[in-house]
């Protein structure tokens, strides 16, 4: 049965991506006892996901090595299921982990916005970043025909990485219209580094056209995807594929922050200049405070880590963070989701419960959709369909409850609220 591990630290960091690594490193360097909890086998998050550190870019290696030297501790393969006041409850295999920490930094990253289309439930249809995550975890794409249909800055590096990994890119598509992209490109004049990086990625799959204003409308196959159909400017065509990566952008993971009672507006955790949330003792850094990419996540993590450790935060860090935020807003203006077209009625929307689009009435709320159709009641707890339904019908997410992640042990353990009597 489940064993119990009780830990007491000064700072608990939830999420071991760039924001969490930077926060923990700064906190630990300031002399605090810091523990990072992450679900993955390695610290690093999605962008620094790796099999061996040698494969990582220099910046990632530098930060991970600095983290190691700082003395901060990391607990991987650990899922946080509850956060109340200064107590964190997590599960690690058959072990229950309880962490007491007066300071908690939420750095839970983002997930992909996956919009339903006919055939999106077939095996080998994945997210754009999902496909990349699997490749980084050791999945081979050598010689495979791969199509990407995404939105925004993630598509380019993923296409480049897949080409390097030996995939045959048959389509690289971005639903953003060319006119929006041109307006954005003009605003990049002050950031030549970014343009140059884009050119470098682009060169790695020079044989494949990058199609703006193009999206996937269906996928088909016997027991796995075999072909995908795309549409652009009134033209529709089908390509044979072995793998399809499809997504429409990123969604901040705010479930833990909401569970902890932090104010969330427009899908983003509200923070002040020092990354403090509305909840005393809880900071938030990186994508949950607004999608902004790795450099911004590092800055926000540093600020949160320093402040949580009671250290002064240099003005230079805050200024760089503010500039990064402003740039993230420009990116969102350029690549943010336009109006979403509803898929055909029979298309499955909730993958956990196999609920088709026709089951929903747009006059409902998310709560009603859950009650009437079971959408969002499965193991993913609406993390996939909730974001899609929000994009399709404008429904705000329903309230969050612990345990945040269903695990075999989570069914055996109590949540923090109900366990008060026993501690």
């Amino acid at each position: 049965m489940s064993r119990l591990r009780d830990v007491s630290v000064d700072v608990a960091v939830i999420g071991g991506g760039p924001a969490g690594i930077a926060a923990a490193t700064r906190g630990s360097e300031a002399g605090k006892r810091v523990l990072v909890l992450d679900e993955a086998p390695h610290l690093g998050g999605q962008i620094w996901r790796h099999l061996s550190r040698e494969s990582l870019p220099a910046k990632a290696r530098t930060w991970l090595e600095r983290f190691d030297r700082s003395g901060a501790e990391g607990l991987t393969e650990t899922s946080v299921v509850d956060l109340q006041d200064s107590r964190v409850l997590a599960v690690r295999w058959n072990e229950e982990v309880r962490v007491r920490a007066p300071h908690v930094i939420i750095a839970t990253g983002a997930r992909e916005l996956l919009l339903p289309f006919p055939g999106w439930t077939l095996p080998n249809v994945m997210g754009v970043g999902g496909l990349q995550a699997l490749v980084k975890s050791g999945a081979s794409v050598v010689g495979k025909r791969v199509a990407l249909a995404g939105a925004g800055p993630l598509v380019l590096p993923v296409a480049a990485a897949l080409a390097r990994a030996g995939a045959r890119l048959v389509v690289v598509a971005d639903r953003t219209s060319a006119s929006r992209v041109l307006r954005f490109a003009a605003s990049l004049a002050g950031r030549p580094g970014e343009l140059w990086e884009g050119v470098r990625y682009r060169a790695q799959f020079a044989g494949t056209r990058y199609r703006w204003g193009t999206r996937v409308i269906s996928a088909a196959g016997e027991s796995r995807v075999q072909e995908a159909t795309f549409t652009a400017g009134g033209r529709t065509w089908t390509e044979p594929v072995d793998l399809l990566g499809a997504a429409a952008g990123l969604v901040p993971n705010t479930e833990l922050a909401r569970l902890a009672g932090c104010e969330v507006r427009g899908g983003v955790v509200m923070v002040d200049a020092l990354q403090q949330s509305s909840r005393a003792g809880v900071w938030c850094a990186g994508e949950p405070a607004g999608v902004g990419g790795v450099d911004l996540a590092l800055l926000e993590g540093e600020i949160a880590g320093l402040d949580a450790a009671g250290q002064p935060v240099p003005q230079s860090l805050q200024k760089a963070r503010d500039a990064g935020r402003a740039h993230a807003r420009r990116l969102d203006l350029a690549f943010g989701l336009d109006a979403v077209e509803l898929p055909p009625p029979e298309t499955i929307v909730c993958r956990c419960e196999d609920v088709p689009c026709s089951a929903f009435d747009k006059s409902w709320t998310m709560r009603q959709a859950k009650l009437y159709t079971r959408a969002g009641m499965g193991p993913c707890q609406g993390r996939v369909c909730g974001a899609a339904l929000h994009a399709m019908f404008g429904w705000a997410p329903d309230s969050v409850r612990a345990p945040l992640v269903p695990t075999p042990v989570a069914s055996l353990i109590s949540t923090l609220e109900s366990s008060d009597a026993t501690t």
Partner: protein
Amino acid sequence: MARILSILVDGRLLEVSEGITVAAALLNAGEDAFRDSVSGRPRGPVCGMGICFECRVTIDGVRGRRACLERVSPGMRVITRE
């Protein structure tokens, strides 16, 4: 080079590289149906990061493990579509 180790997937012996995830090992072996949906349709990994729960399999007797979050280990027994 990574060390090679053996795992059992639905009774079939697979030689896989140390350090990769169970999801990667299954995909590399051509096993792309990890589970059956509530209406009996095959499903495989989607998000690759533990969010969607589509890649859940039984690992060493424990049901509902997310294959994308778990690394292969010597002698590991994986059962799909249970």
